[in-house]
């Protein structure tokens, strides 16, 4: 007993440092392991402790990624797939059972978050997914099977510059959307000539109001923090002067030219249009280094069969197309796959709705979701995280009620932690004003106590999606002796999941190579696709007949191939599918 105490004291400084944010120690934030009673569905004693009720800056994200990879060396590797404009790494975690077969021979699933700088929580949800998979391997059968069969490629933030800028520079909850390349928004030839000014030096860009008898606004009687417009024929006490700032470049407008103001989600190589047609586009597809890193990785990993990107907000599970022009390219079979997945998403994610981007939200040219689907043939969803529904589990039809809800939520559940109270300020251009309003960490991102819940639900949706990437098996092999030394070998290759090896768009544009089904052993005299086994409808492949090329193995479907072989005793069939992985069978 005494001995243990001494050891603990000795280790204390080290433990203290390691647990500053999260730790590898067996102590879970001060409680010892034997004091924990497991809650269903959550790892109780993970190797890596992470709090899921707060946000991490780029350094924190880096640290969590490192710790996960170090703690789970047989399941995770960490690499940088490129550098951001300011030189931060774009981290990528590869998560799978690294010992059973090469990850490139397994169907892959891509997850990223935070493409828009202010939409930070996608990063935590991606990290939660990585953590959950790693900490449950060997403990939960579903997760164990998933990592044996599939590989996850997780890039927690694909806009690390913007992420840190959002957190450490004066911003609203909506800024910046882009990365940090300074661009000229006003056309005066000066880039970023008039950014926000954090007048009261609190790190948040809130509202400016000024008392005036000519005003159109007054304080809401129920909650004086909230400004409401007066009715027709009424005079208020305040005028609103916009977001905190001043006219720094003296062009007659406040905050007219901040950093960035391009949109990294208008920079992708499908149906790309320039800024004057699609506001926010940069010079050409993948001109932004962060997106180029993702593009290079995805092109180099044709095994990626499904993808999830995280944005905020609004509680949406979005699929493409981003524009009406591509509606004709969304095939019936692809729509069915999305519907099967999306409709379960509706159920797993209360307050979220499964929607079509261009129809239900707005039109986007050059969006990431469209490049993944139409450019690479990958089934992809974008989730718009967080919704006002989560305040009180109510949908708001009424604008007034919707306007009140965040104030009520902040007052009764956050105890006014999310609001900067109105305070007087002497403005160089407006004179005596007041500054106040919601902080940048409220409104679009989850309040702490809701983050883990939504992380888990969103993750569950992506795991369902990943589970349904193609799962190929050599279902049946039939060897018939045809006499004269000839054998007829017939193999049935089945896909036991919803997603086909080749999406409809992939087939129509020949994006990915066909599946190769190869027979080794013996001399192949002829090879063929069996289109109907019972009625003997056969299509011969005249060249390279030992490797039968199959355009697609449909979801929940199968294909049949046949060879006429001379000689050989032992045979091997290998199914090599870009998105369906590689499987072999000896017989």
């Amino acid at each position, binding site marked *: 007993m005494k001995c243990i105490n001494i050891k603990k004291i000795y280790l204390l400084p080290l433990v203290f440092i390691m647990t500053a944010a999260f730790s590898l120690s067996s102590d879970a934030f001060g409680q010892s392991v034997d004091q924990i009673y497991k809650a269903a569905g959550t790892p109780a004693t993970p190797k890596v402790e992470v709090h899921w009720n707060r946000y991490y800056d780029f350094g924190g994200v880096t640290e969590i990624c490192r710790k996960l990879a170090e703690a789970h060396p047989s399941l995770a590797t960490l690499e940088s797939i490129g550098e951001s404009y300011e030189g931060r790494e774009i981290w990528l975690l590869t998560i799978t059972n690294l010992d059973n077969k090469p990850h490139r021979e397994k169907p892959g699933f891509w997850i990223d978050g935070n493409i828009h700088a202010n939409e930070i929580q996608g990063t935590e949800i991606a990290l939660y997914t990585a953590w959950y998979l790693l900490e449950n391997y060997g403990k939960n059968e579903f997760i164990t099977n998933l990592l044996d069969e599939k590989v996850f490629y997780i890039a927690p933030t694909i806009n690390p510059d913007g992420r840190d800028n959002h957190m450490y520079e004066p911003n609203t909850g909506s800024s910046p959307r882009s990365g940090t390349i300074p661009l000229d928004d006003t056309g005066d030839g000066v880039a970023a000539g008039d950014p926000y000014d954090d007048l009261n030096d609190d790190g948040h860009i809130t509202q400016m109001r000024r008392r005036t008898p000519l005003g159109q606004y007054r304080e809401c009687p129920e909650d004086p923090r909230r400004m409401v417009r007066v009715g027709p024929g009424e005079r208020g006490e305040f005028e609103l002067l916009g977001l905190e700032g001043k006219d720094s470049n003296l062009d007659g407008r406040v905050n007219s030219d901040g950093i960035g103001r391009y949109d990294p989600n208008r920079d992708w190589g499908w149906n790309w249009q*320039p800024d004057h047609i699609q506001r926010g586009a940069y*010079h050409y597809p993948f*001109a932004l280094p962060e997106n180029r890193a993702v593009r290079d990785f995805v092109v180099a990993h044709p095994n990626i069969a499904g993808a999830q990107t995280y944005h905020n907000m609004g509680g949406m599970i979005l699929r493409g197309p981003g524009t009406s022009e591509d509606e004709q390219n969304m095939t019936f079979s692809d729509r069915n796959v999305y519907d099967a997945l999306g409709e379960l998403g509706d159920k797993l994610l209360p307050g979220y709705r499964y929607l079509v981007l261009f129809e239900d939200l707005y039109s986007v040219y050059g969006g990431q979701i469209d490049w993944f689907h139409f450019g690479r043939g990958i089934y992809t969803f974008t989730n718009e995280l967080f919704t006002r529904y989560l305040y009180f589990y109510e949908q708001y039809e009424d604008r007034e009620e919707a306007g009140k809800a965040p104030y009520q939520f902040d007052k009764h559940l956050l105890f006014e932690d999310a609001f900067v109270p109105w305070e007087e300020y002497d403005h160089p251009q407006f004179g005596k004003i007041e500054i106040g309003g919601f902080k940048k960490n409220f409104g679009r991102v989850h309040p702490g106590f809701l983050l883990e819940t939504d992380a888990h639900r969103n993750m569950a949706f992506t795991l369902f999606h990943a589970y349904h990437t193609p799962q190929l098996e050599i279902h049946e092999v039939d060897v018939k002796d045809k006499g004269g030394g000839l054998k007829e070998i017939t193999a049935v290759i089945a896909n036991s999941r919803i997603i086909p090896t080749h999406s409809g768009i992939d087939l129509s544009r*020949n994006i990915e*190579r066909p599946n190769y089904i190869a027979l080794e052993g013996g001399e192949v005299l002829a090879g063929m696709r069996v289109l109907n086994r019972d009625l003997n409808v056969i299509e011969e492949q005249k060249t390279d007949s030992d490797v039968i090329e199959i355009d697609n193995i449909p979801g929940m479907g199968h294909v049949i191939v046949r060879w006429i072989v001379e000689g050989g005793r032992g045979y091997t069939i290998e199914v090599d599918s870009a998105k369906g992985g590689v499987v072999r069978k000896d017989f």
Partner: protein
Amino acid sequence: MQKFSVCVAVVIIASFFPFSCIYGQSGYTDHNDLSVRLQDLAGEYPELASLETLDQTDGGKEIWLLSIGEGELENRPAIAVVGGISADHPIGTELALLFAEKILKNSEREDVNELLSRSAFYVFPDMNPDARAQFFDPLRYERTGNDYPVESVERDSRLGEDPYTDLNGDGMITLMRIEDPAGDWIPHPEDERVMVRASYEKRETGNYKVLAEGVDKDLYDLFNMHREGMVDFNRNFTFDYPAFTPRAGEHAVSETETRAIADFLFGAKNVFAVVGFGPADNLSEPLAYNERAASGRMVTGILEGDVPVNRLVSNKYNEITGGENGGRISGSEGDFFQWAYFHYGRFSFSTPGWHVPQISSQDERGGEQLSFLRWAEEEDLENVFVPWQQVDHPDYPDRKVEVGGIAPFVMKNPPYRFVEKTAGDHYRFLLELAKMRPVIDITNVKTESLGSDLHRITAEITNTGTFPTVTELGERVRWVQKTVVNFDPENDQELVSGKRIEVLDRIEGKSGYECSWLVRGSGTVNIRAGAESTGFKQIDINL
């Protein structure tokens, strides 16, 4: 192994075969010679020219940029002169190179000297050097794809499996015709050297199949679809990008070559016009206005306000060149010419620089080829047609297979003696174009004293050039810098009325925009107006 031996055979045969020096390609400048000549220019005119390489291609060749002008160039109206846009058109490279040589050799001339000190030229002579190398290769064919090793057009992950094969060993890839009762080609009724499709209406019966010269190594139906060079510079730009078509690339601007020039040009705010020597033509014939194409969110036709500029420039072009250099097309999918206008927002001009004089024919089929052969006879050109000659073809052992046809390149690139004249014309045209550049001046400056130290300043921001300050389309384009007027009073002066910063929409040539300010207090006021593409003008006014 088989491929290797075929290649060796081709090299050996080609090096002995007279056609390998087919009209000499003598004169045309290969990449090495081009590099030497550019380096020589930069060495000879260090004050006027600087050479840089924007990047290296997958084939390991430099993408050259020669910047021409005296002193700092970035605040001076500039013209980008681009050659090698279509690699089967090496004359484009010659025109760009010869322009650079001529302007520098004439730099002592007064008008040239004036241009070199007030404007700038960015010369990109060879935008697709990997593909252009095929023109100088022992095995010659009209190649436009670079060395990027993308999957073949069938995307079956088997790389470069089916290059051309030189069946008759003449160092060229021409055509192959196979006698076949099911074929739908016939020799042209007016010139039987030329193969055309049989006409159903004329009740002609086809008796040939026509394919590119080669061996279908993997026995697919598509002959020779796989070529070692894969992405065409002139199909890889963002405007009207032909996704998932041969030689278009993985996506728009996917290639080293396209990114290199796009990155440079987006950074070069001073470029007001782009002149390409490539297949498109809006110089012998200006683009026509089409209201429907010019309206809506997705603009696909020249805007009305830009039409007169194109007409003016086209008139000047035809005046100088004699109007004989007409091309055939006004733009193609994913090309550089249309990108420079529709997405880059600058005035964009293009010409092939040379073309075969057209003749009229009773039978419209094969018109260009007929014109070419007629012209080649008049000019006594040799070795431009490979007579049909029977070969043994491994895929058609019992059939009559002949190889022949018009030699590669010759229809788009004349013998070198024709290049000199057209290069001189285009040099003169580019000088005239530079003289038409937009120039911002501050004119008609007036100060009025209104009493009590209150002054009204009026000035006209004038474009004294011929071109408008920006294209009409450029008014919408974020990357096009409009004219900015900065008004800077001294600290103790009060600006009572008027703008400190004003961004002006396009100012037509020879016209102006009036600005006025009210200032209280004496001292010096500074007014600066302009943009990189018009030059800046600055004045001080003492009150």
